[in-house]
């Protein structure tokens, strides 16, 4: 560390933060803090000194400019700096008097800031290919495409089996499947579709029955909720994990959501681990 913290409170919190195992877990976040500390050009200060660096003052001027579309005048700059000094003094005195203790709003904001720290780091992480590939492999159930089949179907009329055999033979001889069969509103030709969607259209169990049929020829009959069908499987896809480059945005979004959740949890665990937690007995509280 090249710079001493401004106040004893800050010294404590920063040291604690930098030596915390949490920082090692949040490798990138920790790195940001370390770099920030290395780049800190603030002069040594005493607890009773209020010092504004030229860099911070320039930032105030820029902030002013972004609101007013012009730089502050010399008078305005002086007022800005004076206001900052007063605020800094008031805050230090308030902290010294313990006024930050027991204030619900301050507690809330600190709480949020710490949680936000975890989540914002997740948002800033840029995963490499290997990380995403590993995540994809480890969460295959989340991304796997179920097995799918594409097929054509002809809805059969109420017809003795001999009639069905004849229809099947004619279809396999090349007759137009859209010119035969009974009236219905079911699709004639389904692209690659998963079992859940197929069952939604034809009724439960249909997909499994179709899957058992041979490829490339009219086969069946197969029973649906509506009646009997002849089917011809035109394509099968085993499903499984699509390659990363096809679903990269989704994988990255899910990975980041998982990181944020893990970091939130880890933060909670890590922090609690540093305290001895003493809670009254639940039943005792409730019995009063």
């Amino acid at each position, binding site marked *: 560390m090249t710079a001493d913290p401004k106040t004893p409170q800050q010294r404590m919190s920063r040291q604690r933060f930098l030596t915390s195992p949490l920082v090692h877990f949040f490798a990138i976040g920790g790195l940001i803090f370390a770099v920030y500390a290395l780049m800190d050009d603030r002069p040594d200060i005493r607890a009773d000194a209020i010092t504004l660096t030229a860099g911070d003052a320039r930032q105030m001027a820029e902030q002013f400019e972004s609101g007013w579309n012009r730089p502050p005048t010399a008078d305005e700059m002086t007022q800005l700096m004076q206001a900052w000094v007063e605020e800094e003094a008031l805050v230090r005195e308030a902290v010294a008097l313990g006024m930050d203790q027991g204030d619900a709003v301050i507690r809330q904001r600190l709480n949020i800031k710490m949680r936000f720290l975890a989540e914002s780091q997740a948002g800033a992480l840029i995963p490499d290919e290997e990380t995403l590939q590993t995540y994809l492999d480890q969460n295959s159930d989340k991304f796997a495409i179920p097995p799918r089949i594409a097929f*054509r179907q002809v809805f059969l009329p109420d017809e003795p089996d001999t009639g069905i055999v004849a229809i099947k033979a004619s279809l396999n001889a090349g007759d137009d499947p859209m010119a035969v069969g009974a009236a219905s509103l079911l699709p004639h030709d389904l692209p690659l579709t998963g079992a859940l969607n197929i069952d939604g259209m034809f009724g439960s169990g249909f997909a499994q029955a179709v899957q058992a049929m041979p490829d490339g020829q009219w086969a069946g009959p197969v029973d649906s909720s509506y009646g009997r069908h002849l089917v011809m499987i035109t394509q099968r896809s085993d499903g499984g994990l699509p390659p990363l480059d096809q679903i990269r945005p989704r994988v990255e979004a899910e990975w980041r959501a998982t990181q944020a959740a893990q970091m939130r949890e880890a933060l909670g665990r890590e922090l609690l681990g540093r305290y001895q937690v003493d809670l009254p007995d639940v039943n005792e509280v409730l019995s009063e």
Partner: protein
Amino acid sequence: MAIIKTFNRAVLLIGASGGAAFAQSAETPTPPRSEYSPYVEYDYPDQALFGDTHLHTAYSADAGLVGATTSPDDAFRFAKGEEVMSSSGVRARLGRPLDWLVVTDHAENLGLPIALAEDSPLLQETEWGRDMAQTFAPKTFDARVQTYMSWFGAVNTPDGGDPMAGSGMNETMWQRITELAERHNQPDSFTAMIGFEWTSGPDGNNLHRNVIFRDGKELADQIVPISAYDSDDPEKLWQWMADYEDRTGGQLLAISHNGNLSNGLMFDDVTLSGQPLDRDYAQRRMRWEPLYEITQIKGDSETHPLLSPDDEFANYYRWDKGSFGVEPKTPDMLPREYARSALKRGLVYDEKLGANPFKFGVVGSTDAHTGLSTADEDSFFGKVSLLEPTGNPVRYTEAITGRFTPDNSTDDMVHGDALASGLAVVWARENTREAIWDAMKRKETYGTTGTRMRVRIFGGWDFASKDIDRADFARYGYQHGVPMGGDLPADTSGAAPSFLIRAERDPDGANLDRIQMVKGWTTPDGEPQERVYDVVWSDDRQVGADGKVPPLGDTVDLAVPTYSNSIGAPYLASYWHDPDFDPAQRAFYYLRVLEIPTPSWLAYDRAFFGTEIPEGKPLIQQERAYTSPIWYTPGQG
């Protein structure tokens, strides 16, 4: 070809009207093919995809502040068929997944309950936000209700403006929602669409619209949703939608709902700013909101017994006692509230203005505020989380509307009046955002009260009765006519238009009772007219002296409860041509398909919880589907 015939399911094709007889085992001429493979030209919509365009989660202030804990993530997982825990702690799972879902949380302080639950620093950005955070802080039930009331006050303050404006909360929450839609969108198996609800309700009268994106997160994140804080006026919404399209190159459409709770404002004869409707208004309205949600939990909006006195099925889950405001309902408001009368009045406007302001197609949806899209009678999770399945009679007695009218007891609509409805169905080629949105845009949609029956209609000038049996029904229908939502092409022959009609029951549901054709038209002196024709029905019933097909009776056993498909038909089809056609009259035609009677959600509740259902609430009902109309305009296509 010799042995291949088209086979009738003649046994199911019972009943005819309009002078059409059914073909008996007609040989179907196959048109000459230009390609060897018949599938080369197979590019028309052939899948009925079932979804919900209207669902709220805890991101909606009026859900998350009063009991809902479900996120859009839960909503999408549930719609996909996964088990989720409901907000009231009841395990919930859909019997069958949906094909697609739009989560449409209220734009007014989108995500406020989430921000409160997270103690978000964004709340500290405005005085109102700080007040809300403080009110909410104890996190007790009372604190939540207090917070809800404060929000309700803000959202109902005329010209009050967004009390969180400039805080960044809308942006933050919107982007979380679009992110979740993106994560759940799986083209070809489940489509997660982006949307929101613009909740305009001047004086508590319902002018709400759901706005549906064709686009993904990348474009949707370039805006934050317009809210009723910005404007109550639908014309401002349309301008905002136009601006979005200009800015991003994306595409939007809006779906209005609950005209039955608008006290005559939804299909009014004047604009919200009091101007008479003109051609420009009519064109803009249909440009931006091609669809109307005709059925949902808060009642059915097809028609009303006072509007359709000759329609014995008009009295279906009527919610006709006022709105969310203080003004009671009066009968003169009804024609400006219901879909059928609006469609009829639209024809009169079309004649007068040269454009029809009410030329909409229809869908059904739930409008559930539970994050759970349940339109099935046997697992209805209700309108709001506090009224999820429970043996507590509050599930039937809690007032949903009419709270603020002067006479508080008699004009309330209570949760026991709720309809476990509905579904939005699109005819599409594939299950993707683009294909579903495009179907909505061209109005090739229908709405059901929860049943997954399939319904198709094609209208044209040269259909013949034998065409109804064609195995290539859809291909032929598109080649020679227009589907639901379309306009009949120009015709100069003076002959009546003809229609090919099919309906197939829910594969896991009840048989069909009948298909009806609802026709609306205008007389030369501009009087809108309507008539309901029984087109085809089950069980060989004879038309009665009153010209109507008699009721089917029912097979419901309320003790279980259950029903049997021993009555009704799994499939009904008909060729129909208009027996009363006048080529000089504007007209529309849509289908209403009725299932056989089945137990209502109240009957399932009674059997499961042993609760007593309040007097007068239906235990048996007939689920139904309504299609988008096909329009006829003299001299035009």
